[in-house]
């Protein structure tokens, strides 16, 4: 990958080595530029779909204002201009990072995104942790016992995690562990007093676990962790099943390679064969698939947050939708679109760096 050939992309007879480097750079640029249409399509889709029902102010307050008041408000916010002008205007402000203000409680949408985004990121991280801790080892067990009883049971488990809606898992967990056994709290991110304590800290991140750790208060840390267990398990199981199957399939692939056969013939034990010989090459694709699960995780987060009253972006999305607050809804959906598009880009970058065949 010499830099000289990259600087002169028009060179007719580029050496094979240089051509490969150029290919990677070109692939990454093209792939990066693809983020823009992806986000644009989704943002436009949501914008026009929501506008089909009317302008944001009439839908939010239509029945509570006099026609004159309504008209004044519409004019002030610019909603009486042609739709296309509004659309281009909206795109322009999005590009500069201005998401507008919410209609119902008149705060900057970016403020909503920052406040509640931290809660969703926190939940998503816990869920990914649960998914990894459950999915990867179980996938190894399934591969080591391929086509025998443990494999069949785990396969059924994986299908069940997919077939059970995350909110039903959540309700069952609540019914058993919060109500029935009384071991864990049934909803919220922290107890009321802990929540107040955390919000009164001098500098807060919005991620409760970090804030609690920083305060050095062990009761706050335990309280936050106890609240996180059930939502994290509910959302994490959704991804755990996917991981389990992926790890199993990949391991079975690497277990049948020559070098593993060689190790087997030397008398290496089956479990050690999995953990020490076959695991590493089989786990690389897991990284990329984990990235692709982000979209599923976001959809699941909306449902999990509603089930457990976890006040994150998903919970707020449902709340703003009920209130017909379109700027807020568009902002949250736009953020989700960006997150999905960027993670897909990162996944493709990782895949291209690992495997040259992926590049264009």
């Amino acid at each position: 990958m010499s830099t000289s050939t990259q600087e002169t992309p028009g060179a007719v007879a580029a050496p094979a080595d240089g051509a490969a480097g150029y290919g990677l750079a070109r692939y990454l640029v093209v792939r990066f530029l693809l983020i823009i249409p992806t986000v644009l399509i989704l943002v436009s889709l949501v914008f026009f779909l929501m506008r089909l029902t009317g302008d944001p102010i009439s839908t939010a307050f239509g029945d509570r204002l006099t026609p004159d008041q309504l008209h004044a408000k519409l004019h002030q916010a610019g909603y009486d201009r042609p739709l296309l002008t509004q659309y281009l205007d909206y795109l322009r402000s999005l590009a500069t990072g201005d998401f507008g203000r919410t209609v119902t409680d008149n705060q900057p949408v970016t403020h909503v995104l920052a406040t509640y985004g931290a809660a969703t990121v926190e939940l998503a991280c816990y869920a990914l942790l649960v998914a990894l801790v459950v999915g990867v080892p179980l996938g190894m067990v399934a591969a080591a016992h391929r086509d025998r009883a443990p494999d069949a049971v785990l396969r059924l488990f994986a299908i069940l995690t997919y077939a059970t809606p995350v909110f039903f898992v959540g309700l069952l967990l609540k019914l058993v562990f919060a109500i029935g056994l009384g071991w864990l709290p049934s909803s919220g991110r922290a107890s009321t007093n802990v929540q107040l304590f955390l919000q009164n800290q001098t500098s807060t991140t919005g991620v409760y676990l970090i804030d609690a750790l920083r305060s050095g208060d062990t009761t706050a840390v335990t309280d936050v962790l106890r609240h996180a267990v059930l939502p994290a398990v509910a959302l994490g199981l959704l991804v755990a099943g996917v991981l389990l199957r992926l790890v199993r399939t990949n391991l079975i692939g690497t277990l049948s390679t020559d070098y593993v056969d060689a190790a087997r013939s030397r008398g290496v034990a089956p479990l050690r064969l999995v953990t020490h010989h076959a695991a590493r090459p089989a786990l690389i694709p897991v990284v990329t698939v984990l990235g692709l699960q982000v979209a599923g995780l976001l959809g699941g987060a909306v449902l999990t947050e509603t089930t457990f009253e976890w006040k994150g972006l998903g919970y707020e999305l449902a709340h703003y939708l009920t209130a017909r607050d379109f700027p807020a809804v568009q902002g949250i959906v736009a953020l989700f679109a960006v997150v999905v598009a960027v993670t897909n880009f990162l996944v493709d970058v990782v895949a291209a760096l690992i495997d040259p065949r992926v590049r264009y």
Partner: protein
Amino acid sequence: MALVLVRRLPPRLRLRLRAGAGVQRAMLVTGLVLTALFLLAALLGPLLAPHGYAQLSDGGGLFGSQQHPSGAHPLGTTIAGYDVLSRTIWGARTALLIIVAALILSVVPGTLLGLVSGYLGGRPDRLLVGLADALYAFPPLLLAIVMSIVISGGRSGLAGGLGAAACSVAVSFVPQYFRVVRAEVIRVKAEPFVDAARVIGTGPWRIMTRHVLRNSVRTLPLIFTINASEAILTLAGLGFLGFGIEPNSAAEWGYDLNRAVADVTSGIWWTAIPPGLGIVLTVLGTTLLGESLTDLADPRLRRRSGGSAPDPDGGTDDD
């Protein structure tokens, strides 16, 4: 097209069933039984359910709210006073409707676009591939919520709720059918028999439908089952968030679970578990069916299992 698939499957199935391992057979049988039960409940719901889905009283007066399971109401009543068993059975009908609606809206455009785009190629093809990449990764539930607001202001009748869920499931599944069919079409159109047809002067449309399409739909049954499951889960998610079908328009499992959240907090289990099991068993049935059919159709997955003899004609019927 569906007819072609059905005609192709049975002989393969019979062969594979003999050779298949115990686990695969158990999966297939369980999948078939669950799916049959689901179809039975969906089609014969009115005969099986003791009451209507929106019925609040009978000859003996009002059912009452949150009644414990009893002889009159085997699974109790909801907070609104509906009979839980009846609504769970009626829910199967709504689930079947959403499967049919989502399948039609996804399969037909996805397959057609994949066929034409893959066969003709060029710039429009590349544009469609990019578009498909952009859309398929987005969670259908989010689009479903937005669409339900658009279609009916979030308070849906049967058609509105089904439409919102089916359209948004289609947004993420049209690209999947498109990709799979397009990839197959590109492979098939290079085969000699397509050239032969072209040489004797067959028109492009006839080549596409008679020669290419029929050889490009082998992998679709698995996507059908994923598509069906996703349709049920999206409609249920929509109902759970409170943007789905209203209770007096149809019985919908997600809505019933939404109403059960508060019940769970006070320890009432019978309003949450039946509709939840309805969703789980239906999705489980279709998924098991789809996976075992794929296993049985894939010769690579049949070996090494339970010491069963290799299939005698495993090599001949792959294509």
